[in-house]
């Protein structure tokens, strides 16, 4: 279904339908994350991907135009790059440990320590939260700074010159 939606997005010329299909794509991936037991990611995907970014794209559409400009470029090089990269990725998945394998490197490094000791050290039952907010607090600080930087960039591009443009 994801692949079908992606192909439909490529085939569409009307930007409005492309944005709607993008929202649908996000919603389908959110259900995929629920199946994989990553409820936190599914939350974010459903709210950001299907909700907020669809609305932002629509408001961007209101600023620009409704139709995609037709380009007469050579499509062979992009298709070649996509096919080679896809084939490389597919080939490398054969080396990956099978899904849920307890001997996989991710499950033998720091994960057992978090699972065994995080409740004694942090005292909260949700290990995801204790890793995100405490063990990896510095990374999360960086993420929040990135979000804040995005706001500054958007305000610089759209906000400050409102009503004072000469052209």
């Amino acid at each position: 279904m994801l692949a079908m939606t992606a192909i439909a997005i490529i085939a569409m010329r009307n930007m409005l339908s492309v944005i709607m299909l993008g929202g649908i794509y996000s919603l389908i991936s959110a259900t995929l994350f629920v199946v994989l037991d990553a409820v936190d990611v599914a939350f974010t995907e459903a709210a950001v991907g299907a909700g907020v970014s669809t609305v932002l794209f629509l408001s961007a559409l209101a600023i620009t135009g409704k139709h995609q400009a037709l380009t007469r470029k050579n499509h062979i090089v992009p298709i070649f790059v996509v096919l080679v990269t896809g084939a490389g990725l597919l080939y490398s998945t054969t080396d990956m440990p099978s899904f849920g394998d307890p001997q996989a490197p991710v499950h033998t490094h720091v994960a057992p320590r978090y699972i065994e000791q995080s409740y004694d050290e942090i005292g909260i039952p949700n290990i995801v939260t204790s890793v995100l907010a405490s063990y990896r607090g510095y990374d999360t600080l960086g993420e929040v700074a990135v979000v804040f930087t995005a706001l500054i960039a958007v305000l610089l591009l759209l906000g400050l010159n409102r009503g004072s443009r000469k052209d």
Partner: protein
Amino acid sequence: MSVQKNPILRETSHLLIPAILLFALYVQFHGEYGPGGGFQAGVIFASAIILYALLHGTKKAEKVISLNLAKALAAIGLLLYEGIGLLGIILGGNFLDYNVLSHDSVHGQHWGILLIELGVGMTVASVIICIFYAFSKFKR
């Protein structure tokens, strides 16, 4: 088309927006026990405000949360996060070390996580609201 003339949109928004806001607060403060946390709660909170702005217009939404308030909250959220980190240094620990925030290290972790998640939620929610305002008020 005005929302006031469309009973379906009006009644649905009256029903849904308080529930979405409540759910955002639940995700924010229940992140230690269930799935969720500051990022998710911030996005859900912002989506409720955006829904209100879509249905009733940006002007009415700005009476709830103005652009300047949202800008300020975005900075305050990040500063709260960094402040908690610096507080760890001041109280004799490392940067973002919550163990020293309280007499008991587990208790300190609780406080630290609660406060930084609050900072994350504030920043994320107000950044998204700000970006939406910037887009919707932009004039060519």
